[in-house]
């Protein structure tokens, strides 16, 4: 028996952020790709707003108007990060969708003995290194 399908990330907020960044270099986290691209897009958009404001300000055109743009961009970026990593789709408090048709379930069904047949062999011991459903095995089951 293994709970590969139900693993969650036991990481702290900074660890999870680093883990999320690592996905783009080594591709070894358990966060879903679609969520990550969406999150990256939103964060980049707000970072771009902030950078535009900074660029305008450094160009020396006006004072407060650009400062306001930087303020808006930085605020949105901060709120987005808190929402994504603390509450929303990248939060460690939100369980990953359970892989209903994953390897363990299939194995369990395969092992189900037909009526009248001899009892099936016991399940192999859980392998902590066997990847399942594209998720890494560096994380244990917890909230």
């Amino acid at each position, binding site marked *: *028996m293994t*709970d590969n*399908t*139900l693993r969650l990330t036991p990481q702290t907020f900074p660890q999870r952020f680093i883990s999320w960044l690592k996905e783009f270099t080594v591709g070894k986290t358990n966060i879903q790709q679609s969520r990550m691209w969406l999150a990256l897009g939103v964060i980049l958009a707000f970072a771009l707003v902030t950078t535009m404001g900074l660029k305008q*300000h450094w160009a020396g055109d*006006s*004072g*407060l*108007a*650009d*400062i*306001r743009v*930087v*303020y808006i961009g*930085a*605020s949105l970026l*901060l*709120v987005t990060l*808190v*929402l994504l990593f*603390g*509450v929303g789709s990248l*939060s460690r*408090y*939100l*369980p990953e969708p*359970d892989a*209903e048709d*994953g390897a*363990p*379930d299939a194995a*369990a*069904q395969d092992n*189900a003995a037909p009526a009248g047949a001899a009892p099936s062999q016991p*399940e192999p011991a859980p392998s902590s290194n066997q990847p399942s459903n594209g998720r890494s095995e560096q994380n244990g*089951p*917890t*909230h």
Partner: protein
Amino acid sequence: MVPLIDTVIGFSAIMLMLSLLVKSLTSLIKNHVDFYSRNLQHEVNRLALGVLGKSWKAAVAQVKSDQDKRFLEGINWERVGDEFLTKGHVEWLLTKLGATGGALQNLEQRLQVHAASIKYAFDARMKNVALAVGLVLCLGLNINGLTIWKTLYGDQQLRTTFATTYAQSALLSAEKTSQNANPANTPAAAKKAPGKDKKPGSSPNPALPGANTTEPAATGSPSPTDQGSETAQKEKLNEDTQTLMSELADFQKNVNFGIGRIWTENSTGKTARSPWKFFANEFFGSLMTAVLISIGAAYWHDLLRTLTSFSLKKRDEETQG
């Protein structure tokens, strides 16, 4: 000494009022968004995996009785609360899924662990929601605690007003809010949010032990009682929203000296000379205020009450002296 105490009291009163606003807003969001069902479903799945050696869905697929299968497949997790995780209910369900006596050993202890996991995840997420709400409120309106403190300390009339009338009003609001609050900010309370109500006094599911029928009922259309209850809840939500908006408008009117400088300041003032200093002051001031009202929300009421009684005592002594 007295000006400093009065400043602290005024500042605490303003922070307390802000904390109450954040609390109300968080409560509204909690009632609109389901932060609970997926965690509950996940924990039940983990429990099934631990007891049966297979996931809930795989176990349900192997149930032989069509009636039981229909019922188990029809469980609507969004309508199930903490009461689902009682030993009697879960034992009955696991037995239907093929669990034997040996596998059901220590079920109560296992359930406690899973229930604790759900509660932890829910509480932690609600704290993060409160932090996000605080950030939105403070950064959006540019509510700057530093400016508020400086203005209160420098303006005697304002300080006196906030240390007396406003502080009393804030304390009354806090006590009223705590009296009207839900019995507990628990996952079970969250499950009673609009659209997720269950009939009071009824079994979570009629097919559970002790009920008269085994008819699958979890995904049926809502009964007239449910619809009436949902309408009442919606009306209450609208009312709460209006109250919140009015409280927010009052707060903006009362504390206008510490709000929105980044939006209202013109470039001909002194800020034109040091825009970065102005930005740092407003951004980090608002950020600090957001953290103070979100994370430190629990302490403002106690601090204000203690300081108010201390100040009253000191004023009495000065009058008698």
